[in-house]
Protein backbone atom coordinates (compact mmCIF):
# COMPACT_ATOMS: atom_id res chain seq x y z
CA UNK A 1 0.00 0.00 0.00
CA UNK A 2 1.40 3.26 -1.08
CA UNK A 3 -0.07 5.90 1.16
CA UNK A 4 1.32 9.35 0.61
CA UNK A 5 -0.98 11.58 2.62
CA UNK A 6 -1.02 11.03 6.38
CA UNK A 7 -2.62 12.35 9.54
CA UNK A 8 -1.53 15.62 11.07
CA UNK A 9 0.26 15.19 14.41
CA UNK A 10 -2.37 17.39 16.09
CA UNK A 11 -5.08 15.05 14.81
CA UNK A 12 -3.27 12.04 16.26
CA UNK A 13 -3.09 13.73 19.65
CA UNK A 14 -6.79 14.42 19.57
CA UNK A 15 -7.61 10.81 18.66
CA UNK A 16 -5.25 9.42 21.32
CA UNK A 17 -6.75 11.76 23.90
CA UNK A 18 -10.28 10.75 22.96
CA UNK A 19 -11.06 14.42 22.44
CA UNK A 20 -12.43 14.49 18.90
CA UNK A 21 -15.98 13.93 17.74
CA UNK A 22 -17.19 10.45 16.96
CA UNK A 23 -17.35 11.37 13.27
CA UNK A 24 -13.71 12.50 13.15
CA UNK A 25 -12.53 9.55 15.25
CA UNK A 26 -14.12 7.15 12.78
CA UNK A 27 -12.15 8.59 9.86
CA UNK A 28 -8.94 8.56 11.88
CA UNK A 29 -9.46 4.95 13.00
CA UNK A 30 -10.12 3.90 9.40
CA UNK A 31 -6.97 5.55 8.10
CA UNK A 32 -4.89 4.06 10.90
CA UNK A 33 -6.20 0.61 10.15
CA UNK A 34 -4.98 1.04 6.55
CA UNK A 35 -1.69 2.84 7.22
CA UNK A 36 1.16 1.15 9.04
CA UNK A 37 3.15 4.33 9.45
CA UNK A 38 0.32 6.19 11.18
CA UNK A 39 -0.22 3.08 13.30
CA UNK A 40 3.32 3.38 14.59
CA UNK A 41 2.74 7.04 15.29
CA UNK A 42 -0.55 6.50 17.14
CA UNK A 43 1.07 3.88 19.38
CA UNK A 44 3.55 6.50 20.48
CA UNK A 45 0.91 9.16 20.90
CA UNK A 46 -1.21 6.87 23.03
CA UNK A 47 1.88 6.25 25.12
CA UNK A 48 1.63 9.89 26.17
CA UNK A 49 -1.82 9.01 27.56
CA UNK A 50 -0.36 6.01 29.36
CA UNK A 51 2.34 8.05 30.97
CA UNK A 52 -0.05 10.82 31.95
CA UNK A 53 -2.22 8.15 33.59
CA UNK A 54 0.79 6.75 35.38
CA UNK A 55 1.65 10.20 36.71
CA UNK A 56 -1.80 11.00 38.07
CA UNK A 57 -2.35 11.48 41.76
CA UNK A 58 -4.34 8.35 42.80
CA UNK A 59 -7.99 8.99 43.69
CA UNK A 60 -9.76 7.37 46.63
CA UNK A 61 -11.59 4.30 45.50
CA UNK A 62 -14.40 2.57 47.34
CA UNK A 63 -13.21 0.08 49.92
CA UNK A 64 -15.19 -2.71 48.39
CA UNK A 65 -14.12 -1.99 44.81
CA UNK A 66 -11.62 -4.81 44.61
CA UNK A 67 -14.03 -7.32 46.14
CA UNK A 68 -16.76 -6.26 43.77
CA UNK A 69 -14.58 -6.65 40.73
CA UNK A 70 -13.28 -10.02 41.94
CA UNK A 71 -16.86 -11.13 42.50
CA UNK A 72 -17.68 -10.22 38.89
CA UNK A 73 -14.68 -12.16 37.70
CA UNK A 74 -15.78 -15.21 39.68
CA UNK A 75 -19.26 -14.95 38.27
CA UNK A 76 -18.14 -14.74 34.68
CA UNK A 77 -14.48 -15.62 34.48
CA UNK A 78 -14.48 -16.43 30.77
CA UNK A 79 -12.38 -14.20 28.65
CA UNK A 80 -13.71 -12.24 25.74
CA UNK A 81 -13.31 -13.68 22.31
CA UNK A 82 -10.54 -11.99 20.49
CA UNK A 83 -12.09 -9.99 17.69
CA UNK A 84 -8.75 -10.06 15.98
CA UNK A 85 -9.55 -13.43 14.50
CA UNK A 86 -12.60 -12.14 12.68
CA UNK A 87 -12.15 -11.40 9.01
CA UNK A 88 -11.92 -7.69 8.53
CA UNK A 89 -13.80 -7.79 5.28
CA UNK A 90 -16.36 -10.48 4.56
CA UNK A 91 -16.30 -10.60 0.83
CA UNK A 92 -12.55 -10.39 0.52
CA UNK A 93 -10.85 -13.39 2.07
CA UNK A 94 -7.38 -12.39 3.12
CA UNK A 95 -4.85 -13.95 0.87
CA UNK A 96 -1.20 -13.59 1.40
CA UNK A 97 -0.12 -10.30 0.04
CA UNK A 98 -3.69 -9.42 -0.81
CA UNK A 99 -3.96 -5.74 -1.30
CA UNK A 100 -6.00 -4.51 1.60
CA UNK A 101 -6.65 -1.29 -0.15
CA UNK A 102 -9.76 -2.67 -1.76
CA UNK A 103 -11.13 -3.76 1.60
CA UNK A 104 -13.44 -1.83 3.80
CA UNK A 105 -11.62 -0.65 6.92
CA UNK A 106 -12.90 -2.51 9.98
CA UNK A 107 -14.08 0.54 11.96
CA UNK A 108 -16.34 1.57 9.07
CA UNK A 109 -17.70 -1.95 8.68
CA UNK A 110 -19.22 -1.49 12.14
CA UNK A 111 -21.47 1.15 10.62
CA UNK A 112 -22.31 0.00 7.12
CA UNK A 113 -21.83 -3.75 7.15
CA UNK A 114 -19.48 -5.76 5.01
CA UNK A 115 -19.26 -3.89 1.76
CA UNK A 116 -19.47 -0.56 0.00
CA UNK A 117 -21.84 -2.22 -2.47
CA UNK A 118 -24.51 -2.37 0.21
CA UNK A 119 -24.57 1.36 0.83
CA UNK A 120 -27.79 3.17 -0.05
CA UNK A 121 -26.84 6.39 -1.78
CA UNK A 122 -28.78 9.63 -2.02
CA UNK A 123 -28.18 11.93 -4.95
CA UNK A 124 -27.18 15.56 -4.49
CA UNK A 125 -26.65 16.39 -8.16
CA UNK A 126 -26.01 13.98 -11.06
CA UNK A 127 -22.77 12.12 -10.39
CA UNK A 128 -22.54 13.16 -6.74
CA UNK A 129 -24.02 10.93 -4.06
CA UNK A 130 -23.85 10.77 -0.27
CA UNK A 131 -24.74 8.49 2.58
CA UNK A 132 -24.94 9.94 6.06
CA UNK A 133 -23.50 7.95 8.95
CA UNK A 134 -25.02 8.00 12.43
CA UNK A 135 -21.85 9.26 14.09
CA UNK A 136 -22.15 12.17 16.46
CA UNK A 137 -20.56 15.34 15.15
CA UNK A 138 -19.52 18.63 16.60
CA UNK A 139 -20.96 22.04 15.74
CA UNK A 140 -23.05 21.04 12.77
CA UNK A 141 -20.29 19.03 11.14
CA UNK A 142 -20.95 16.09 8.86
CA UNK A 143 -20.22 12.38 8.99
CA UNK A 144 -20.79 10.83 5.59
CA UNK A 145 -19.67 8.77 2.69
CA UNK A 146 -19.46 10.53 -0.67
CA UNK A 147 -19.48 8.89 -4.07
CA UNK A 148 -18.42 11.10 -6.92
CA UNK A 149 -18.27 10.18 -10.59
CA UNK A 150 -15.12 10.56 -12.72
CA UNK A 151 -14.55 14.08 -13.92
CA UNK A 152 -16.85 15.60 -11.32
CA UNK A 153 -15.61 18.18 -8.89
CA UNK A 154 -16.74 19.11 -5.45
CA UNK A 155 -17.64 22.77 -5.21
CA UNK A 156 -14.74 24.91 -4.05
CA UNK A 157 -15.00 25.34 -0.33
CA UNK A 158 -13.15 26.18 2.84
CA UNK A 159 -13.91 25.35 6.46
CA UNK A 160 -14.19 26.98 9.84
CA UNK A 161 -12.93 23.85 11.53
CA UNK A 162 -11.17 20.63 10.61
CA UNK A 163 -12.06 18.41 7.70
CA UNK A 164 -10.90 14.82 7.28
CA UNK A 165 -11.36 13.01 3.97
CA UNK A 166 -10.25 9.41 3.58
CA UNK A 167 -10.21 7.91 0.09
CA UNK A 168 -11.64 4.39 0.01
CA UNK A 169 -11.80 3.92 -3.75
CA UNK A 170 -10.78 5.85 -6.85
CA UNK A 171 -8.83 9.08 -6.59
CA UNK A 172 -9.05 12.85 -6.69
CA UNK A 173 -6.72 15.77 -7.06
CA UNK A 174 -6.88 19.19 -5.54
CA UNK A 175 -4.61 22.12 -4.85
CA UNK A 176 -2.58 20.00 -2.44
CA UNK A 177 -1.95 16.95 -4.57
CA UNK A 178 -3.32 13.65 -5.74
CA UNK A 179 -5.14 11.39 -3.30
CA UNK A 180 -5.64 7.68 -3.88
CA UNK A 181 -7.13 4.89 -1.77
CA UNK A 182 -5.81 4.98 1.80
CA UNK A 183 -4.70 8.60 1.57
CA UNK A 184 -6.18 11.09 3.98
CA UNK A 185 -6.64 14.80 3.46
CA UNK A 186 -6.33 16.34 6.91
CA UNK A 187 -7.24 19.98 6.41
CA UNK A 188 -8.33 23.03 8.33
CA UNK A 189 -9.60 26.53 7.85
CA UNK A 190 -6.46 27.78 6.22
CA UNK A 191 -7.12 25.84 3.07
CA UNK A 192 -9.61 26.38 0.29
CA UNK A 193 -9.78 23.55 -2.16
CA UNK A 194 -11.78 22.01 -4.97
CA UNK A 195 -11.28 18.27 -5.25
CA UNK A 196 -11.66 16.86 -8.79
CA UNK A 197 -12.17 13.14 -9.32
CA UNK A 198 -9.49 11.95 -11.74
CA UNK A 199 -9.94 8.18 -11.62
CA UNK A 200 -11.78 6.04 -14.17
CA UNK A 201 -14.09 4.72 -11.50
CA UNK A 202 -16.25 6.54 -8.98
CA UNK A 203 -14.33 7.99 -6.08
CA UNK A 204 -15.70 6.96 -2.70
CA UNK A 205 -14.54 8.84 0.37
CA UNK A 206 -15.33 8.98 4.04
CA UNK A 207 -15.66 12.54 5.29
CA UNK A 208 -15.98 14.22 8.66
CA UNK A 209 -15.98 17.90 9.52
CA UNK A 210 -16.40 19.73 12.78
CA UNK A 211 -18.10 22.73 11.22
CA UNK A 212 -20.26 23.26 8.15
CA UNK A 213 -18.28 23.88 4.98
CA UNK A 214 -18.15 27.37 3.52
CA UNK A 215 -18.62 27.56 -0.21
CA UNK A 216 -16.77 30.26 -2.02
CA UNK A 217 -18.89 30.51 -5.15
CA UNK A 218 -22.38 31.86 -5.59
CA UNK A 219 -23.53 28.50 -6.93
CA UNK A 220 -22.14 26.80 -3.84
CA UNK A 221 -23.95 29.22 -1.61
CA UNK A 222 -27.16 28.55 -3.49
CA UNK A 223 -26.95 24.76 -3.20
CA UNK A 224 -25.64 24.75 0.37
CA UNK A 225 -29.08 24.75 2.00
CA UNK A 226 -30.00 21.84 -0.26
CA UNK A 227 -26.98 19.70 0.37
CA UNK A 228 -26.64 20.43 4.02
CA UNK A 229 -22.93 20.71 3.52
Amino acid at each position, binding site marked *: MNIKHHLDEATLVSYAAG*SMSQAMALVVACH*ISMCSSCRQRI*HQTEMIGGML*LENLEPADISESAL*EQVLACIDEAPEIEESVAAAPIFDSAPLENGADRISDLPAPLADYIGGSLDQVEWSRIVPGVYYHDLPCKTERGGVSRLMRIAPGKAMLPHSHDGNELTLILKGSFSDEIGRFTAGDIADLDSEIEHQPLVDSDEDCICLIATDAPLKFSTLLGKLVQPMTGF
Partner: protein
Amino acid sequence: METKPPGDDVENIVAIPQQEMKNNWSDLLVQLAERRDKQIYIAIFRHFAPKIKAYIARLGLVESTAEELMQETMLAVWRKAHMYNRSKAAASTWIYTLARNLSIDWMRKQKYPEYGLEAWHEEPDEERNSGEDEVTADRLQKAISQLPEKQAQVIYMSFFEGRSHTDISDRLGIPLGSVKSRLRLASEKLKMIWRDDV
Protein backbone atom coordinates in the same frame (compact mmCIF):
# COMPACT_ATOMS: atom_id res chain seq x y z
CA MET B 1 -22.91 -4.92 41.28
CA GLU B 2 -23.42 -7.46 44.00
CA THR B 3 -21.22 -7.27 47.02
CA LYS B 4 -20.01 -10.39 48.68
CA PRO B 5 -17.87 -10.98 51.71
CA PRO B 6 -14.17 -10.78 51.11
CA GLY B 7 -13.13 -13.92 49.31
CA ASP B 8 -9.99 -15.90 49.80
CA ASP B 9 -8.39 -13.96 47.03
CA VAL B 10 -8.40 -10.79 49.01
CA GLU B 11 -7.32 -12.41 52.25
CA ASN B 12 -4.46 -14.31 50.77
CA ILE B 13 -2.64 -11.56 49.06
CA VAL B 14 0.98 -12.35 49.21
CA ALA B 15 2.81 -9.12 49.00
CA ILE B 16 4.76 -9.18 45.80
CA PRO B 17 7.94 -7.32 46.60
CA GLN B 18 7.51 -3.71 45.58
CA GLN B 19 10.93 -3.45 44.06
CA GLU B 20 10.35 -6.32 41.74
CA MET B 21 7.25 -4.69 40.40
CA LYS B 22 8.64 -1.32 39.69
CA ASN B 23 8.26 -0.53 36.01
CA ASN B 24 7.36 -4.13 35.37
CA TRP B 25 3.65 -3.71 34.89
CA SER B 26 3.93 -4.79 31.29
CA ASP B 27 5.56 -8.08 32.28
CA LEU B 28 2.94 -8.64 34.95
CA LEU B 29 0.13 -8.05 32.50
CA VAL B 30 1.61 -10.67 30.19
CA GLN B 31 1.83 -13.07 33.13
CA LEU B 32 -1.76 -12.33 34.03
CA ALA B 33 -2.83 -13.37 30.54
CA GLU B 34 -0.82 -16.57 30.75
CA ARG B 35 -1.58 -17.63 34.31
CA ARG B 36 -4.91 -16.02 35.12
CA ASP B 37 -3.46 -15.46 38.56
CA LYS B 38 -5.60 -13.42 40.96
CA GLN B 39 -2.64 -12.27 42.98
CA ILE B 40 -1.07 -10.69 39.97
CA TYR B 41 -4.42 -9.14 39.15
CA ILE B 42 -4.77 -7.69 42.62
CA ALA B 43 -1.34 -6.10 42.40
CA ILE B 44 -2.28 -4.52 39.08
CA PHE B 45 -5.61 -3.40 40.53
CA ARG B 46 -4.03 -1.73 43.54
CA HIS B 47 -1.66 0.20 41.35
CA PHE B 48 -3.92 1.24 38.50
CA ALA B 49 -7.47 1.44 39.87
CA PRO B 50 -6.95 4.70 41.82
CA LYS B 51 -5.21 6.30 38.84
CA ILE B 52 -7.94 5.21 36.44
CA LYS B 53 -10.54 6.71 38.70
CA ALA B 54 -8.57 9.94 38.90
CA TYR B 55 -8.37 10.04 35.10
CA ILE B 56 -12.09 9.47 34.61
CA ALA B 57 -13.00 12.04 37.25
CA ARG B 58 -10.88 14.61 35.42
CA LEU B 59 -12.92 14.04 32.30
CA GLY B 60 -15.72 15.66 34.26
CA LEU B 61 -17.73 12.61 35.29
CA VAL B 62 -19.28 12.46 38.75
CA GLU B 63 -17.64 10.39 41.45
CA SER B 64 -20.08 7.48 41.36
CA THR B 65 -19.75 7.18 37.58
CA ALA B 66 -15.97 7.42 37.79
CA GLU B 67 -16.03 4.60 40.35
CA GLU B 68 -18.28 2.47 38.17
CA LEU B 69 -16.26 3.03 35.00
CA MET B 70 -13.04 2.36 36.90
CA GLN B 71 -14.43 -1.01 37.96
CA GLU B 72 -15.51 -1.76 34.41
CA THR B 73 -12.06 -0.85 33.15
CA MET B 74 -10.42 -3.14 35.69
CA LEU B 75 -12.80 -5.91 34.73
CA ALA B 76 -11.78 -5.41 31.11
CA VAL B 77 -8.14 -5.72 32.17
CA TRP B 78 -8.90 -9.23 33.41
CA ARG B 79 -11.10 -10.22 30.51
CA LYS B 80 -9.00 -8.79 27.71
CA ALA B 81 -5.55 -9.50 29.11
CA HIS B 82 -5.00 -12.12 26.40
CA MET B 83 -5.30 -9.38 23.78
CA TYR B 84 -2.51 -7.36 25.32
CA ASN B 85 0.57 -7.25 23.14
CA ARG B 86 3.64 -6.17 25.02
CA SER B 87 5.57 -5.32 21.90
CA LYS B 88 2.96 -2.76 20.85
CA ALA B 89 2.20 -0.96 24.07
CA ALA B 90 3.23 -0.58 27.67
CA ALA B 91 0.74 -1.75 30.31
CA SER B 92 -0.07 1.83 31.28
CA THR B 93 -0.81 2.72 27.65
CA TRP B 94 -3.04 -0.29 27.10
CA ILE B 95 -4.94 0.30 30.32
CA TYR B 96 -5.25 3.99 29.47
CA THR B 97 -6.91 3.14 26.14
CA LEU B 98 -9.34 0.78 27.88
CA ALA B 99 -10.32 3.52 30.35
CA ARG B 100 -10.55 6.11 27.58
CA ASN B 101 -12.76 3.95 25.37
CA LEU B 102 -15.12 2.92 28.16
CA SER B 103 -15.48 6.53 29.34
CA ILE B 104 -16.21 7.79 25.83
CA ASP B 105 -18.65 4.96 25.15
CA TRP B 106 -20.47 5.89 28.33
CA MET B 107 -20.55 9.62 27.56
CA ARG B 108 -21.57 9.28 23.92
CA LYS B 109 -23.54 6.07 24.01
CA GLN B 110 -21.57 5.23 20.88
CA LYS B 111 -18.62 2.92 20.64
CA TYR B 112 -15.34 4.79 20.18
CA PRO B 113 -14.01 3.87 16.74
CA GLU B 114 -10.97 1.70 17.33
CA TYR B 115 -8.46 1.09 14.63
CA GLY B 116 -8.84 -2.62 14.79
CA LEU B 117 -7.25 -5.24 16.93
CA GLU B 118 -5.51 -6.78 13.99
CA ALA B 119 -3.33 -3.74 14.20
CA TRP B 120 -1.97 -4.98 17.49
CA HIS B 121 -1.03 -8.39 16.19
CA GLU B 122 -0.19 -8.24 12.53
CA GLU B 123 3.18 -7.43 11.06
CA PRO B 124 6.53 -8.28 12.49
CA ASP B 125 7.58 -5.49 14.75
CA GLU B 126 9.55 -2.73 13.34
CA GLU B 127 10.26 -1.49 16.81
CA ARG B 128 12.06 -3.59 19.36
CA ASN B 129 9.63 -2.92 22.19
CA SER B 130 7.10 -0.51 23.50
CA GLY B 131 9.85 1.59 24.93
CA GLU B 132 8.26 2.34 28.24
CA ASP B 133 10.59 0.37 30.38
CA GLU B 134 13.52 2.59 29.70
CA VAL B 135 11.44 5.64 30.29
CA THR B 136 10.54 6.28 33.85
CA ALA B 137 7.57 8.28 34.94
CA ASP B 138 10.07 10.76 36.23
CA ARG B 139 11.40 11.35 32.79
CA LEU B 140 7.99 12.05 31.36
CA GLN B 141 7.25 14.31 34.25
CA LYS B 142 10.42 16.14 33.43
CA ALA B 143 9.60 16.31 29.73
CA ILE B 144 6.17 17.71 30.47
CA SER B 145 7.49 20.20 32.97
CA GLN B 146 9.94 21.36 30.34
CA LEU B 147 7.23 22.04 27.80
CA PRO B 148 6.41 25.69 27.40
CA GLU B 149 3.31 26.34 29.49
CA LYS B 150 1.15 26.99 26.44
CA GLN B 151 2.01 23.60 24.99
CA ALA B 152 1.48 21.69 28.23
CA GLN B 153 -1.87 23.42 28.58
CA VAL B 154 -3.23 22.11 25.25
CA ILE B 155 -1.97 18.60 26.04
CA TYR B 156 -3.80 18.63 29.39
CA MET B 157 -6.93 20.11 27.84
CA SER B 158 -6.94 17.29 25.27
CA PHE B 159 -6.11 14.32 27.48
CA PHE B 160 -7.71 15.33 30.75
CA GLU B 161 -10.63 17.50 29.70
CA GLY B 162 -11.40 15.80 26.41
CA ARG B 163 -11.57 19.08 24.52
CA SER B 164 -11.49 19.15 20.72
CA HIS B 165 -9.31 21.53 18.72
CA THR B 166 -12.21 23.91 18.08
CA ASP B 167 -13.25 23.76 21.70
CA ILE B 168 -9.74 24.65 22.87
CA SER B 169 -9.60 27.40 20.27
CA ASP B 170 -12.80 28.94 21.71
CA ARG B 171 -11.73 28.53 25.32
CA LEU B 172 -8.34 30.10 24.86
CA GLY B 173 -9.50 32.62 22.31
CA ILE B 174 -6.75 31.66 19.86
CA PRO B 175 -7.05 30.56 16.21
CA LEU B 176 -7.54 26.88 15.40
CA GLY B 177 -4.19 26.87 13.63
CA SER B 178 -2.41 27.94 16.82
CA VAL B 179 -4.06 25.16 18.82
CA LYS B 180 -2.86 22.64 16.28
CA SER B 181 0.67 23.93 16.07
CA ARG B 182 0.99 23.90 19.87
CA LEU B 183 -0.26 20.32 19.97
CA ARG B 184 2.13 19.31 17.18
CA LEU B 185 5.12 20.82 18.91
CA ALA B 186 4.22 19.36 22.29
CA SER B 187 3.59 15.89 20.95
CA GLU B 188 6.79 15.83 18.95
CA LYS B 189 8.80 16.92 21.98
CA LEU B 190 7.21 14.32 24.24
CA LYS B 191 7.82 11.60 21.70
CA MET B 192 11.49 12.51 21.65
CA ILE B 193 11.95 10.94 25.06
CA TRP B 194 11.22 7.53 23.56
CA ARG B 195 13.71 8.01 20.80
CA ASP B 196 17.41 8.65 20.99
CA ASP B 197 18.29 8.80 24.59
CA VAL B 198 18.44 12.28 25.94
